[in-house]
């Protein structure tokens, strides 16, 4: 559990985090979450609040269960104990989107790209005309310069991941989960997609939870960075990064960014050595 002690010399704002007081702008309440894989206890009685309308990035040492945590919140991996509520609703009552790291295996190659994007809408029972309209709308939002009528495997990796993001956003989710969405992409595409994501975030104000293995990328996008410990995993520290949006390359060289990243690294290294 985070100590939440703020010192005057600490350049980075830390959020004190009392266990049973819900912050007013919390979206996802995680209480008493426990999960073990066989003998190995990954989470033991974890409490966590994820802010509404903010980007929360999860970062931590290898094997600390970043992705497992995300998947448990996203309802993909069952939890042993505890509860996860979205504004008081269960997962089934909440519209969510999920962007996988491996876009090649997340998109359906037997469907055209536009059909892939419209698929969650089909599940939700949208009419064909509504589905088409929504895909068109998304294509405009993302300023798509490639052919959506082809098959996903005809697109570049970055385009495929962009299509995955569009698919996740199609049904107007309340929460968007992203599991290392850029780590299979080249640097150029990462930059493009990162800024697209930020644009969408600013336009919609939806809650985003992203697992990242790249500290720079995590801090760049985040309103709040969750730094995890080694298993049994708890939150080592929560860091707030409140640089104005849209963030750009100047953000990357700003003092606040450099400080937040340095602080994150410090905590990370402390946890890795522990």
């Amino acid at each position, binding site marked *: 559990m985070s100590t939440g002690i703020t010192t005057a010399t600490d350049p980075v704002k830390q959020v004190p985090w009392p266990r049973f007081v819900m912050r007013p702008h919390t979206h996802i309440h995680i209480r008493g979450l426990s999960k073990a894989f066989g003998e190995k206890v990954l989470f033991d009685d974890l409490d966590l609040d994820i802010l509404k309308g903010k980007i929360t990035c999860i970062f931590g040492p290898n094997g600390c269960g970043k992705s497992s945590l995300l998947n448990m919140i*996203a309802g*993909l991996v069952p939890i042993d104990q505890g509860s996860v509520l979205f504004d008081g609703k269960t997962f089934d009552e909440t519209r*969510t*989107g*999920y962007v*996988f790291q491996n876009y090649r295996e997340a998109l359906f190659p037997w469907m055209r790209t536009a059909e892939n994007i419209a*698929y*969650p809408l089909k599940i939700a029972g949208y009419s064909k005309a509504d589905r088409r309209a929504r895909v068109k709308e998304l294509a405009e939002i993302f300023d798509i310069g490639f052919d959506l009528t082809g098959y996903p495997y005809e697109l570049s990796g970055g385009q495929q991941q962009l299509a995955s993001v569009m698919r996740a956003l199609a049904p107007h989710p309340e929460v968007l989960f992203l599991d290392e969405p850029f780590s299979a992409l080249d640097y150029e595409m990462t930059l493009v997609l990162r800024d697209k994501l930020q644009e969408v975030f600013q336009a919609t104000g939806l809650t985003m939870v992203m697992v990242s293995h790249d500290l720079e990328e995590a801090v760049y996008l985040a309103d709040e960075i969750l730094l995890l410990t080694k298993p049994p995993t708890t939150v080592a520290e929560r860091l707030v990064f409140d640089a104005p949006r849209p963030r750009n390359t100047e953000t990357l060289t700003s003092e606040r960014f450099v400080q937040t990243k340095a602080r994150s690294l410090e905590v990370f290294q402390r946890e890795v050595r522990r």
Partner: protein
Amino acid sequence: MTQSPVLEDEARLIDSQDPIHPPPPGTKTRRRVKVPLALTGPVLLLAIWWVAAQADLVSEKLLPGPVETLGALWTSLLSGDMMLDIGPTLLRTVYAFLIAAGIGIPIGIVLGSSPSLYRTMEVVIDFFRSTPVTAVFPLFLLIFGIGDAAKISVAAFAAGLIVLFNVAYGVMSARQTRIMASKVMGASRPRILKDVMFFESLTQTFVGLRTGVSIALVVIIVAEMFIGSDNGMGHRIIDAQQVYDLTDMYSSILVTGAIGYGFNRLFLGLDKRLIHWAGH
């Protein structure tokens, strides 16, 4: 052998068959020589057969020469006489195959999507898959009598098990990310089966269908030989053997082989065309 215009046309057909993965420039010429290469084997075999017959290396009582055999084949095809046997065999095989696919695919999907259910049935499936289908002939005769129903059902049984096993296996090896993706989008279980697992298993399903149709043909031919039948290629082959009409026997064997080969090519072609995403 020189390249005839017909062969060139065939080569062009192969090149244009695949619009999604057109061969890179330069391979075209190499592909063209492939067709005559593929024909070299059969031509060589015919040549050896011809030489052996001409030189009297094999008794004419066991193997007539290719000229006589192919001549007989030509005559019986032209007179329509052989069609009276090819037709029923094809029809029975197709019926058996359709039943096998119609039963094997849905059950395979359901079994494959539930590991515990599959484990429950695994021994039963493996047992019957390993049982020589000829062993259950009498049982099917008992149930269905000696008509077409017995032949078709026993062939469907053998082919169906193979289809079922392959489909189940295909579903079980479906990529987890795709299933997770559909789950997180809120897809119901039947929808995941229909929209994701079915397609994920399609490559393996086609292996099953291709093997299944071959097995169905084998069983139908055997059934036509030994389960009271008055037509079909199996009946024709054994009849020719009984009356010692060797040229007809050999030409019937060749035709039966051609049917099997045709089915195989058909399914390979369908596979390539339908599963356009293979390898992605």
